[in-house]
Structure formats: C-alpha cells, structure tokens
C-alpha cells in the first residue's frame, strides 16, 4: 500500500505538484536522519545529510525508474551523502584533532556511553544501520523493509547479529548491565 502511495506521490511530484514531494519528504525524513546518524557522529550533521539527500532525490526524481521504490532509493542516496559528509568531517577534524586523539565528545561522555558508542562503531555499516533504524525512532520491521528494500527475515537476521556483536563487545569491555 505504501509502495503504491509512494508511486502516486512520485508521479504527482513529477507533474509539478510540490506538495506530493513534500509528503514524501515528511514520510521519509526521520528514517533518513536515522540512516545518516548511523554513519555520522553528529545528530545535526545527520539532519543536514537527510535534507541534502532529499534535495538530491528531488533533482534526480525524473531518473527514478521504479517510483514504488522511492524509499530504498532515497535511503541509498542518503547513505552516500552521509559518507561524503563523513569524509569531509574527518578532513576538517584532522588538523585539529591529531594531538587530541579521540573524539573530544567522548571525553565528556561517561565511560558507559563511550563503550556503547565504540560497540556501535565496531559494527559493519549495514548492521549499525538496522540498529539505528530500530532504536532511533522505534521503527517497525515493516517500515524498515520500505527503506532498506530487504525482507523482514533479512532485517531480523541483521538485528540479531548486530545485537550479538554488541553484547559480545560490551562483555569483553567488562560492561555491567
């Protein structure tokens, strides 16, 4: 149903109906922020990345061959935008950050938070992404399928593996429940 709605909204947007694109934006924005935040260290940067992804999607909307796949498509754009931003972010951080060592934010966080951050960072991107989608905004499996373009079984498997790895990492670091 949502696919069909997306398809209709994309088609309307292509026929000079800005509000249809607005609906698509509102529908996917929080998901895109979650995806971007699984890549970028800063929440505000993640919001910027999500907005830039929507702009990029807007520019290329006419190239989208399967409008019903708008969700996975814009999700992939967001991933790329966030990765680009991360590269720029690291470049900017390098000159200042070399003698400081770690992310300065980590120093302010308590130890538990820092370990949890590390546990998330050591995950492969595709596993970290499902964790963020699931816990960022309590997204359902069904919602996640729309943006990841994967089945519920696949997503469930990824979540299991991700949590297993996190739990193992925390245990190794002596993290107490």
């Amino acid at each position, binding site marked *: 149903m949502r696919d069909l709605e997306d398809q209709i909204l994309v088609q309307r947007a*292509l026929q000079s109906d*800005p509000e249809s694109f607005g609906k698509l934006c*509102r529908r996917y*924005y929080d998901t895109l922020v979650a995806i971007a935040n699984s890549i970028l260290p800063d929440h505000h940067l993640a919001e910027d990345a999500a907005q830039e992804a929507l702009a990029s999607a807007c520019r290329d909307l*006419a190239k989208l061959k399967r409008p019903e796949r708008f969700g996975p498509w814009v999700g992939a754009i967001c991933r790329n935008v966030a990765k680009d931003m991360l590269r720029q972010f690291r470049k900017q951080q390098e000159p200042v950050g070399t003698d400081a060592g770690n992310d300065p934010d980590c120093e302010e966080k308590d130890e538990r*938070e820092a370990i*949890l951050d590390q546990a998330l960072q050591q995950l492969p991107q595709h596993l970290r992404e499902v964790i963020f989608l699931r816990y960022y905004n309590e997204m359902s499996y069904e919602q996640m399928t729309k943006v990841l373009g994967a089945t519920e079984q696949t997503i469930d498997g990824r979540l299991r593996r991700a*949590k297993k790895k996190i739990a193992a990492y925390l245990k190794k670091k002596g993290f107490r429940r």
Partner: protein
Amino acid sequence: MKHENDNQWLDLLLAQHIQHEPEQLDFEKWAEKHPEEARLLRCGFEYSSRSMKTKPYLIWRFIMESKVTRYSAAAVIVLAMTLVLLSPFGTPGNGGVVLADVQKKVAGIETMILRGTKTFTYPGEPDRIFEFDGIKCKFDLVKYHSTRYGLVEEGYAEGKLFYRITFNIPEEQTLILFPKYNKYLKFASMDALAKLMENFATPNGILNLLLAGDCEKLGRDKIDGIEVEAFEFQDTEPFEPFKELLPKAVFNIKNFKAKVWIGIKEQLPVRVEGDLAIGKSFMTMFQDLNLHEVNTFGEYNVELDKDIFDTNPPEGYTELTLSDILKVIPAEAKAGLAGLGIIPAGLIFWKRRRKRAATNTD
C-alpha cells in the same frame, strides 16, 4: 518480530542511547533552503531530464563584446519571446469575442511560465537541423516572465542547461550564461533596446504591440482535451522595431508566421507555434535558416522568486570574449564579421595565411 528477545537489557540500553524524538521536516523551510529544487518541483521535471536539443547555439555562441552583437543577442531573445507572446492577440477589428476577452485576461497577467522547443533548420529541409560546433540547434525551453522583474529563458540541450538568459527590468541588466563553458555575458539593457524589452516583456506592452498585427481565424480544435480556437498570424509588422534597431546584416527577418490556440473556456493562450525565416546574417552565421518555435502555456500568475531574475554571474564563471568566439566560428562567418566591421579583415587573412604556411612546411 518473532525471535525471542534474550537481550531485553540491551534493547533498553540501545533505546536509551540512540532514541530521539521523531524528526519533523518543515518542508517550507527545506524549500527555502533549496530554491533550485523547489523551482524544479513547481515548474516540472520533464524538461530537466528529457533528452533534447534546441536553440541557436550559434546565436549565443556568437555574442561578442561589440555593441552591435550584444544588441543582436538581446534582440534575438526578445524576438523568441515575441513569437510566443505576441501572437495570441489580433487586431481589434478582427475581434471575435474570444480575442476581446483574452485581451482583458492578459492585461491581468503578472507572471507566467512557458515551456517549449526552439529549432533551427535549413530552408526546405525541416528535418535537417542546423549544427554548430557539434551541437544541434534544437533546444527545450523554459521561460519565466514577470511584469515586475523581467524575463528568464532557459535552453536545454540533451538534458543539460545550455544557456540561461535573464533580463532584469528594474536593474536594467541582461545576463547570459553558458554553463557548459562557465562563461557569461553581462551588459546594461540600454537605450532603444531597453525600451523594446520593456514593451515585449510585459503583457500590457505586448498587448499594445499586438494590436498592430493582423490575424486570421482558423476554427476550433482540441489540444490535450482543451477546446481551443486557432488563429494564424502572418505579419512582420510587430518586428519593425527590431528592424530599425538591427541592420539586416546582423539579423535579417524575412518572413514570420505563427499559429495560436486559445482555450475557449479559459480565454487564455494554450499553445503557440511560430516560424521565422531568417536571411543570411550574422545571427545565422551567414546562412539562410528557419526558426521553428513551439510554446505551451500552462502556468499563469504563479509565484516567481525574485532570485530567479538575479543578474550576478555565478561563481567560477568568466566573461565571454571575442577570442572565445573566434576559436569556434567557421571561416565564412569570420569573413561576414569582417564585413560588419566587428573584426578586422586583416586578422582573418593573416590567420589563414599562417595556417597555410604551416601546412606547406609539413
């Protein structure tokens, strides 16, 4: 889903660590931050992606520093606009009820967006498109008109913006951009030209000029399901101001014909097709050419951002110079330019001689 959650403590921990309040996107703000995209959404996508061609590469490519050619360029732009806007209104004497109502309605138009194509072909060979520097002179167009701010014409070749012309009425400035080359040309819209542009760029001005024309009623038809009345114009009188401004050697308008379809219910133009025969002149690289332009009307009194009419060259653009142009134009055109006194004839022959000398040495 179905799997047993043996890590409830971890769920809680992760939720506490990652969870955020649901994000709400303010689409209006987003649109303000992304004006180009917002414009695309308002004005349609088909022209941004469709493979196409259009307009006189030659014309914009040949614009030079000389005042004569600058005038010519501007005049061509105005002319293109004229083909679209001029035609829908005949003489009052011809005046069916439709035209009278159209005149009233047009007087109330403040902004409009038009789309269409512009194609240059050889006379008697409608399928043979004029090419210049490897570019087929067939462009898809988007035009923005505002009574208050002026006119913008965008020409797309093969899906990419090839030229963008901006007439800013309040600033009396004209900016022509060639994104492919990162080149621009900017000049003041002055004297008679400014007056001319003002006349042609405002619906009321256009209306006054149109009343001087003559038209024939062709009967009723249907375009995209809209019932329309068709009119044909065949008169070069509205172009007299151009003729006065531009010598024949620069822009030689030989014949003009246009058909206009006016929506019976809406009492506004729906479509315009114009054909212009241009004789050998600078603007056609000294060849006889036909210009065929089709424009579809659809959006009247839409909100147009003032920034669309900005005449500041974008960052990274450099000014188009005479030497940029001389690199690409054919020899016969250079000879024609020499005839107009725009470049010294000696320069051309000196370059030819040098080239020949180099060949002989090889």
